[in-house]
């Protein structure tokens, strides 16, 4: 032991410092990994989630506020060649202990509709003076204005009471960014039918990767929604009118299956 100590103390201080720094870096790496390898900006988190889900890299088209679980937080909307994504996270008691939601939806044609992940159902009824952003990704460069007719139908339950609803509403939007329209659906407390419709819309149109923390137990029948999209050019001529099918399964996988069949 003494020989080791003598050997160690005879090494120049600079060399010993370098050695210690290497050990510190190694310990820091272990520490960093042990606390879950956190990253500190929303975009960094999103990029990491993209890699982990083996999708992207996507182009971020919007950053919006949306309610996740019990708090409102920033969420990113992104687009790749083949799909569209929602990403957000919320802290859970501790900044290093958080949950994230990563939703990916495949593009299935020239129009792709994306709503944010659904809110907790009962919570949305408690206090919800919010705007629901609905995104339409399109492949019609000449379109400058879009209209959407939403028809939502279903049943929701509050306090053991089942409430059927059949709701129609119209929303319109100017071009938000290249290839994207953003509809803003204004909601206020005291509009339970519209809330239920919006809630259902976000539930069924999010993605196949359903958000595991969303409380959607209030819906007792398979929810149903039709969205008719109309796009107009600069002269206000109708370019296309299309009824969207809000699919919740992987289109690419379905195509493969059809090939096999």
């Amino acid at each position, binding site marked *: 032991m003494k020989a080791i100590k003598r050997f160690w103390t005879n090494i120049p201080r600079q060399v010993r*410092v370098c050695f210690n720094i290497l050990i510190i870096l190694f310990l820091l790496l272990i520490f960093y990994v042990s606390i879950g390898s956190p990253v500190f900006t929303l975009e960094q988190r999103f990029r990491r989630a993209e890699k982990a889900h083996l999708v992207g890299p996507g182009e971020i088209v919007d950053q919006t506020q949306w309610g996740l679980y019990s708090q409102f937080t920033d969420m990113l909307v992104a687009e790749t060649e083949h799909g569209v994504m929602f990403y957000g996270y919320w802290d859970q008691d501790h900044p290093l202990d958080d949950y994230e939601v990563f939703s990916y939806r495949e593009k299935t044609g020239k129009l792709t509709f994306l709503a944010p992940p659904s809110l907790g159902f009962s919570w949305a009824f408690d206090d919800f003076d919010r705007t629901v952003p609905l995104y339409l990704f399109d492949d019609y460069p000449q379109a400058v204005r879009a209209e959407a007719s939403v028809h939502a139908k279903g049943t929701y339950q509050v306090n053991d009471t089942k409430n059927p609803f059949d709701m129609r509403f119209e929303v319109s939007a100017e071009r938000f960014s290249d290839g994207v329209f953003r509809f803003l659906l204004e909601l206020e407390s005291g509009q339970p039918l519209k809330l239920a419709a919006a809630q259902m819309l976000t539930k069924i149109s999010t993605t*196949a990767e359903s958000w595991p923390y969303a409380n959607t137990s209030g819906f007792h029948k398979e929810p149903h929604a039709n969205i008719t999209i109309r796009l107009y050019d600069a002269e206000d001529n109708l370019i296309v009118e299309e009824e969207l099918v809000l699919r919740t399964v992987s289109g690419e*996988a379905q195509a*493969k*299956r059809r090939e096999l069949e």
Partner: protein
Amino acid sequence: MNEIFLLRRWAENAVSGIIFPGDKRKVYQELMDHMEDHKDALMEQGLTEREACEAVEKAMGDPWSVAKELAEIHRPFWGYFLRFTRIIMVLLIATLFPLDTFLQERLFQNPHFRGWDVYASSSYGEDSNRTLLHLSKQDSSFESDGYTFTATKAVVFRDEEYDRTTFQCRIKEFNPRPWATHAETGNWFWAEDSLGNYYYSYYETAQDENPRKPAVNSWVVTEGILTNTYEFWISDFPDADWVKLHYTRDGRDEILFINLTGGGAK
């Protein structure tokens, strides 16, 4: 002996202001060597040892003023830095100590569930309702987004109790970036077999009204810093010669080919 003690006491006082023990030891030795040489020279001139020591001590001057000067000189940056790095190391080790459970799990791949290794060792016995039909090593792999997925083993067994044949496959995911999270892909794998059957991914069945569709299910068997191991299984599996596990998403179409011919049953 007492005479030498005078010089030692002087040197100890002189180096008392030096902070770092290594420096203190070296300076002390230098001072002692110098004073002993001086003392020897004086003794050669005819002085007694005591007289020589007293003369040397007198010649060296006030030890406390020397101590002050030496303390000023010996404040090396590297000495302080070395001490700083030691403190950081101790703090980090103290912080990591409570995480040792985590480290055990991560570094040594503490298995959550051993899958068919447990079946193989205990559940395929004579008293078991399970019959092992196929067991083979696999080596099919693909790489995507920095992750490498490799099929390592496959097994097909029949469970008489439930009148069901099950296919299981072990997949190792290698991730060379320990700071990145592991892949979240298990629920997106779908499969086809040599008989033309299609097996839905978990997400497809999860969204479907009919949850009993033939499906690929998976779970994590072990978690490590660089590797995760998954088990994929298909229930009600027919007598097929091969299975292709597909990962089809966002422009990627990756395949793991699982050959079920050959191999052997236990």
